[in-house]
C-alpha cells in the first residue's frame, strides 16, 4: 500500500491548481491521478479562447491555459500518474486505482481532493424518442472527435441545447465546413454566456430557436432529420408547431452532471441541487479530509473561477494535513427567491481570513434586481445587479468584518429582491 499526504483525483484545471497550491503551502507528498494519457483534463479539447482573463490577464485557448498549470506542476516536481483510473475510495481515504504499468494501486491518503470534473447528460436520460442511428452525439464527444482526432461527426447539424458547449460547437462545426441548421433551446433564454450567443450564432446567422424542443429523430442507419416543436411556458409541446429539419447529425448539449460516483463510494454527502458534494468554506465535505473543487463540486462557466476555487481547496487540504483543527461552530447558508444553491453551504465564521467567496446561480434571467444577504434576521448586504442569468455563476463576498459584527450567526440567507 502506498501512502501520500494528499491525493488529488483528476489532473484537469481543478486538480492541477489544487496540487500546486498544496505544494506551495508546504506539502511535498502529493500524488495526482489522471485517467487520460496527458494532464489538462477537458481543456485539452477546448481549443476556443476565452480562458485566463482573470488568472493571467490574457485570453488563452484551453490547451494553452492547461499548459501553464502543467508547467507549474513540472517545475514543482509534483508526482502524477497518467492513464490511471480510480476505481474506489473509502471514507477512510483509501484509494484503489489501476493502470497498465502498476496494475492495481492501493493508496492511503491523509487528505483527498476530489477534482473529477463532470460528464454530459446523454440522449437516453432525456428520453428523446425516435431512431438510435449513428450521428447522435453529446457536444463534448463531438468536440473530442473534431479537436483531438481531426474528424467530423457530421455535415448537416442540429444542436439541442444552447449551453456553452452547444454554442461553441455550433461555431466549431461551421468553421470546419459543416452547416449548422439550428440551435434548439427548451427554455425561453439561452443557458450559455451571452458573448457566446453573439460570436457563435449571430456571427454565422445560425438560428436560435428558443422555447423549442426535439420530439423525434428520423434515420435508418444514420440520422436523416429531426422534428422540432415549440413548447409553452410549462415546457409542454404545442400541437401544430412541429417542423422537420433534415440533417445528418444531432448534437446534444443538455446538461453537465458532476461525476460523483466515487464520492458516493466514500460516503460523501451530495447536494440534490448541484449533484456535487456539500462543502463548507474550506471546501471540505462531510468526510474529514476529503475536499472538492472544480466541476465535480458544481459546474462552472469560467475556468478562472475553477482555478481560484481549487487553489483554495489545495490550501485547505494542506492546512488539514498540517493538523488544523476544524471548528465545530458553523453557520448554514440557505437560499430562496431565485437563488438555486450556494457553494459553500456551511461557513466556519472563526476561520474566515479576509473574506469568503460564496458562489451561486439564479433560476432564471433577471433584470435590475438586488442580491440580498441576511445574517440571521438582519439584512447585511443589498447589491444591485443589472442582469443575472442561470448560465452565469455569481459571487458574493462575505468579509471578515461581517462575521466579527455578527459573532454568533447561525443562518445566512441569500436571496433576490425586487427593491
Amino acid at each position, binding site marked *: 500500500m502506498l501512502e501520500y499526504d494528499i491525493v488529488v483525483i483528476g489532473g484537469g484545471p481543478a486538480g492541477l491548481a489544487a496540487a500546486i497550491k498544496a505544494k506551495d503551502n508546504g506539502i511535498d507528498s502529493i500524488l495526482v491521478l489522471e485517467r487520460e494519457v496527458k494532464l489538462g483534463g477537458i481543456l485539452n479539447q477546448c*481549443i476556443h479562447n476565452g480562458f485566463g482573463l482573470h488568472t493571467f490577464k490574457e485570453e488563452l485557448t484551453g490547451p494553452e491555459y492547461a499548459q501553464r498549470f502543467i508547467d507549474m506542476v513540472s517545475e514543482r516536481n509534483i508526482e502524477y500518474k497518467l492513464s490511471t483510473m480510480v476505481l474506489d475510495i473509502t471514507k477512510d481515504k483509501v484509494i484503489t486505482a489501476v493502470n497498465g504499468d502498476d496494475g492495481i494501486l492501493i493508496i492511503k491518503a491523509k487528505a483527498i481532493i476530489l477534482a473529477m470534473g463532470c460528464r454530459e447528460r446523454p440522449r437516453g436520460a432525456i428520453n428523446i424518442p425516435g431512431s438510435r442511428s449513428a450521428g447522435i452525439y453529446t457536444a463534448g464527444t463531438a468536440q473530442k472527435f473534431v479537436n483531438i482526432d481531426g474528424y467530423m461527426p457530421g455535415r448537416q447539424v442540429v444542436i439541442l441545447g444552447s449551453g456553452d458547449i452547444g454554442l461553441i460547437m455550433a461555431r466549431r462545426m461551421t468553421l470546419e465546413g459543416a452547416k449548422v441548421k439550428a440551435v434548439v433551446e427548451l427554455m425561453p433564454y439561452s443557458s450559455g454566456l*451571452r458573448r457566446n450567443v453573439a460570436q457563435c450564432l449571430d456571427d454565422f446567422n445560425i438560428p436560435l430557436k428558443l422555447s423549442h424542443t426535439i420530439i423525434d429523430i428520423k434515420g435508418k442507419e444514420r440520422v436523416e432529420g429531426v422534428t422540432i416543436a415549440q413548447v409553452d411556458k410549462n415546457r409542454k409541446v404545442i400541437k401544430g408547431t412541429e417542423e422537420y429539419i433534415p440533417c445528418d447529425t444531432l448534437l446534444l448539449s443538455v446538461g453537465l452532471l458532476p461525476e460523483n460516483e466515487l464520492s458516493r463510494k466514500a460516503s460523501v454527502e451530495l447536494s440534490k441541487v448541484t449533484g456535487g458534494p456539500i462543502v463548507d468554506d474550506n471546501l471540505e465535505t462531510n468526510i474529514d479530509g476529503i475536499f472538492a473543487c472544480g466541476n465535480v463540486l458544481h459546474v462552472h462557466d*469560467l475556468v478562472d473561477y475553477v482555478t481560484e476555487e481549487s487553489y483554495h481547496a489545495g490550501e485547505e487540504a494542506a492546512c488539514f494535513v498540517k493538523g488544523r483543527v476544524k471548528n465545530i461552530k458553523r453557520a448554514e447558508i440557505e437560499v430562496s427567491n431565485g437563488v438555486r444553491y450556494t457553494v459553500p453551504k456551511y461557513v466556519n465564521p472563526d476561520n474566515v481570513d479576509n473574506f469568503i467567496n460564496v458562489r451561486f446561480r439564479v433560476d432564471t434571467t433577471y433584470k435590475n434586481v438586488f442580491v440580498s444577504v441576511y445574517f440571521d434576521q438582519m439584512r447585511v448586504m443589498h447589491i444591485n445587479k443589472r442582469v443575472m442569468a442561470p448560465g452565469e455563476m455569481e459571487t458574493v463576498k462575505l468579509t471578515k468584518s461581517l462575521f466579527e459584527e455578527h459573532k454568533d450567526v447561525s443562518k445566512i440567507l441569500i436571496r433576490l429582491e425586487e427593491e
Partner: protein
Amino acid sequence: MEIRELVCIGCPVGCSLKVTIKDGKAQKVEGNTCRIGEQYGINECTNPKRIVTSTVIVEGGEERVVPVKTEKDIPKEKIFDVIEELKKVKMRAPVNIGDIVIKDVSGTGVNIIAAKNNKKI
C-alpha cells in the same frame, strides 16, 4: 443615425452595449463597464474583428491535429479566407505553443500560431 444594440464579447461578462452610429462612424458607446467594451463597441460597428481558432493536420505527432489561433483578432469578413488557407497546412511534429504556422494569413498582417504542444512519436 442608428442605435445598435449588441452584446460585448470582450470578456465573459457580456455587457449589453448601445452604440450610436452616425455617418458610418460610431459616435457614442453606452452600457460598457470598461475600456475593452468601449473599444469593442466602436470596432464592432465600424470594423468588426474576431480571433479565429481552428486545427491543422500534424504528421508524426501524438495527435492527428493541433489547435491553432490567430495571434490577434482579424477582420470578421476574412474568417473563411483564413479557414481556406488552414486547409492547406500540414505540419510536422514536434509542434510547440507559439510556433508560427502561417505568417500574415490572408493578407491580414496577423500570424497563425500553434496553441497546443504536439510531441513527436
